[in-house]
């Protein structure tokens, strides 16, 4: 009985590893799957009359969606951490305990 479970355990561990590998590959497959509809409709930002930084931003969008995506994905968490830390500092000033909670019930 034990050998039966051991062999099944090894097989399940193998499946476990395969799922992790599959998950790592999934974004590539998803990008490929989701790409078709996008190519049919292209939205172009109008850069005429924009102030310098907005013009740069809109140009980046028009020139390369890849670079635009990379910059966006870097900016969002960075801004989140900055705003979160600032809000944290203000909350700390109120005088409440922000590191623990007493409640442990469901």
């Amino acid at each position: 009985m034990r050998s039966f479970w051991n062999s099944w355990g090894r097989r399940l561990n193998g499946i476990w590893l395969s799922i992790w590998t599959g998950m790592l590959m999934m974004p590539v497959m998803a990008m490929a799957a989701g790409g078709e509809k996008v190519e049919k409709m292209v939205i172009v930002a109008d850069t005429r009359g924009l102030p310098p930084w907005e013009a740069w931003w809109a140009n980046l969008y028009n020139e390369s969606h890849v670079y635009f995506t990379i910059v966006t994905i870097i900016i969002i968490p960075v801004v989140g951490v900055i705003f979160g830390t600032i809000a944290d500092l203000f909350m700390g000033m109120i005088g409440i305990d922000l590191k623990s909670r007493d409640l442990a019930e469901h």
Partner: protein
Amino acid sequence: MDWMYVFMPIAGVYIFWPGLIILGIGVGVIGGFFGMGGAWMVTPGLNILGFPMAFAIGTDIAHMAGKSLISTMRHGKFGNVDYKLGLIMLVGTVVGFEVGAQMVMWLERLGNVEKVVRWIYLALLILIAWMVFHDVAKRKQKERDAAKQGKQVDALATGIEWHKTLHKIKIPPMVHLRVAGIYCSAWLPILVSFLTGWLAGILGIGGGLIRMPALIYFIGCPTHVAVGTDLFEVMISGLYGAATYTYKGRTELVAAVIMLIGAAIGAQIGSVATKYIKGYGIRVAFGIAVIACAVSILLKLLAKFYPAYGVLLDNSATVVILGTVSLLSLYIIVAFVQGARKEIQAKKARA
């Protein structure tokens, strides 16, 4: 009053920026409190402010990633995030979401699936609302029974205990989830996250609305840990979603950053408010949010059946959503203020 409007360089529209900040605060409070992204509230809100629908969805997802990061940071400090569980569930969520999304594309080729998807969504929301209120009723019954015998119900006792049956399945590898206080087969969170991810993929939603109750009722997480862990998942899936939507050219970062100013404040209030409200209080408020969401979906479905009243019913759906968000935000903010005041007074009395 021109200074109150900011130009969105990609979408090419002028938007009332205080509206973005207020929306950010509202969704930050609700998201930080319930542990969800809140796409169902933000997308109609952005649409009302003047965003085309395609940009409303992408911008919402982009801001959701940043907001969930802020909430996860706060919940992490309270010890409400089970990172191990979150990472394990990520496997099932991503695979399930892609399977669901591919299935919708396949169904689209067969015919119009929009109505079918909305009906499934409605049925699912009714099921979640039933689960929440059935659980609350069972827990109350237990309290009454215990009171009759002159006893008190254990603080950790729950109404519905489906997770206890599921924990008896011992298929290896077994995992010990320390923060959630669970020892179970790793396949349980994977299967649950696959199913919730699959449903989210079919319905085209982030999944927090489904995953939060699933974490409580099927995996057995305490409410606070379910909220924190779900936010951790929303943060990662939000970043992934933001990447795909931005790659498709449907994200307005300027709006997302403005919303994050409000969301940073709201997320802190919502997350800290969980300190002052018991787990079952969170569950009841969550149940109300689910009912409001179901009513708005029903109104949108009725708008399709009765085109003569379409505008009225569509507008009513938006009013229901935004009204519920405002009321729930108010309830959470009041709970936060009262709880903080009591804590500060207690601290002063001790000093």
